[in-house]
């Protein structure tokens, strides 16, 4: 804010730990090292965090360069409060397994729904690309 009062700028966020939510649903946590005028981000020591229920798992990813348009939101992480979470960290294998199970359950539910609708003569068009806009 010192540089550009009255605007929102990422300059003040450099070298701080951030949580970045991407448009494809991924959550990245890393140190914001560099930005540009399009809000492209360079994340350092990045970790992709997968949440399933009350558990989460971190996959270390190294350095990320994220194109600005793919960011939904980002926020600074308070390092002192970071470990102050009710969530339980598990290993990567476990969380990936949990995620797979969750996805499967969702698909099953979706299938049942579609079937039920079909039985009643209704159909929902596939909303594959609706996420984008």
């Amino acid at each position, binding site marked *: *804010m*010192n*540089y*550009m*009062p*009255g*605007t929102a*700028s990422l*300059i*003040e966020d*450099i*070298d*701080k*730990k951030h949580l970045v939510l991407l448009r494809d649903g991924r959550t990245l946590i890393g*140190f914001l*090292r*560099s*930005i*540009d*005028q399009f809000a492209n981000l*360079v994340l*350092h*020591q990045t*970790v992709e965090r997968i949440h399933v229920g009350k558990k989460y798992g*971190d996959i*270390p*990813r*190294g350095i990320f360069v994220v194109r600005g348009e793919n960011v939904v939101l980002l926020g600074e992480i308070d*390092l*002192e409060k*970071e*470990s102050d979470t009710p969530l*339980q*960290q*598990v*290993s*990567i294998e476990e969380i990936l397994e949990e995620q797979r199970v969750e996805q499967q359950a969702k698909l099953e539910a979706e299938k049942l729904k579609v079937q039920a609708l079909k039985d009643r003569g209704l159909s929902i068009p596939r909303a594959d690309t609706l996420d984008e806009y």
Partner: protein
Amino acid sequence: MKYLEGPEKSCSPLAPEEELVSASQLEEEEENENEEENLDPDLALDVEEEEEEEENSLGDPAVLTAVHNAQKGLLSSPGIKAPGVLGMSPTSLYFLCQTLDYLSPSPFRPTHASTSSPARHFGPRLLSPDPSLFCSSPTLQSPRFSHLTQLHPQHQRMLQLQQQSRTPSPPAKKPWSQQPDPYANLMTQKEKDWVIKVQMVQLQSENPSLDDCYYQKYYQKLEKRQADEELLGQRSKVESLKLVTPYIQKAEAYESVVRIEGSLGQVAVSTCFSPRRAIDAVPHGTQEPEIGATSSQRLRVLYWIEKMFLQLLEIEEGQKDGPSRPCYSEQQRNQVEKLFQSLNTPEQNHLDEAADGFLQVLSVRKGKALVARLLPFLPQDRAVSLLLAITHHLPLLVRRDAADQALQMLFQPLSKYINHLTFHELLQGLQGLMLLPPGSSERLVTAVLQNQFGISLLYALLSHGEKLVCLDSSLEESNSDHTVWTDIVILIAWEIAQMPATSLAEPLAFPSNLLPLFCRHVDKQLVQQLEATMQLAWIY
């Protein structure tokens, strides 16, 4: 082989970073690594070795490149000595690189994933050093945020509590207990300034009060509020920052795509500098759209109104920044005059002539708004002629206004100028209303009385006439003017009395001297009738 590749990658990017690493950190790093038992058994032996070498080599970036070369050398021929290295054997160089690898936070160690300290995976140095953020002065409410950050009240309270809890013990507890971040300032100040510059350039504008209206207004309000606060109580003036965009002269931008009227698509002529730009076949300046025979009058009027409105906005803009009303600049006066002329108000002597354009402008809602907003800027004589023109054509205007009902906006500005009318002018204006148009049993004034604006204007004019008569006793003498005046008054009174109360419009302002005026000129019975009608209408 894996080990050899690993350090090779990490060596070169770490070259600038290594200079920041102090000896103590290195030791601490070793201890950390030892605790977690990540240490390669080979390297446990080398702690002393690289400690002594560390002094020689870590300060010298040339060494690292030499080391890098040495790595390559290792693969081919271990016996070769790297140039510039102070008598280090390749094996010790190799181990040096190993330690360098450890100094970089190991990105992926799945086997050592521990739930106890998840933060460790990010490496030992977590916090970026910014002591200014942590040491907040007790007076400031929220140090990092400008006046524009609007926090939820709960959030604000939380922050306040934090501040309070922090300030009593800054010397006791170090908020940033970790080491300073070696990766800090990868983005140099120059680069940050560059990004800001780019963003600022995008924001620049020639007319910020137009382009950035909301922020400018907000900032003015804020400054005013702070000035008031300073006057009232708070002595300390908190300077709130303002965004000031730099004014950079934009390079002359040419139209790369030229369109010629009537053609389809782009012109297929290219030069070496501008591939698609045609020869200057396009005339400069405003292009009057060639409307053919099919152009409708109404469109033309609308277009004309738009153009005049733009001029009016310019005048208003100029006046807003400058001093108040009386001191108009020469340029402003010219602008106003130009606009007035373009309105094509008919001259006083030729009131009956087709003031077509003017009336058409006034038939459109926007035209009325235009005239209403222009009136305050006009010099008195111009305004008076406008007023008279409107009065003269009142029936027509009223008729055309039936749909819009927008004439009211003219009343306020016009009423100011009514007081400047001379008796003679007044009579002239009112006379036109008394006419009985051919083929109609109704006088024009009846329609006027049924319209709110019409009746308001009429009352205002009558009131002014009465005032003039009262003030200037010479007018009381029986001359033609006075007779005309009396006739007009009687006629109007009669018309009002004639009309059913419901069709009489409610005036916007009811002058107090109307009833006495009527009393003097008409008989008692009529006055009583008038009273009833007018007051009934007024109540409604």
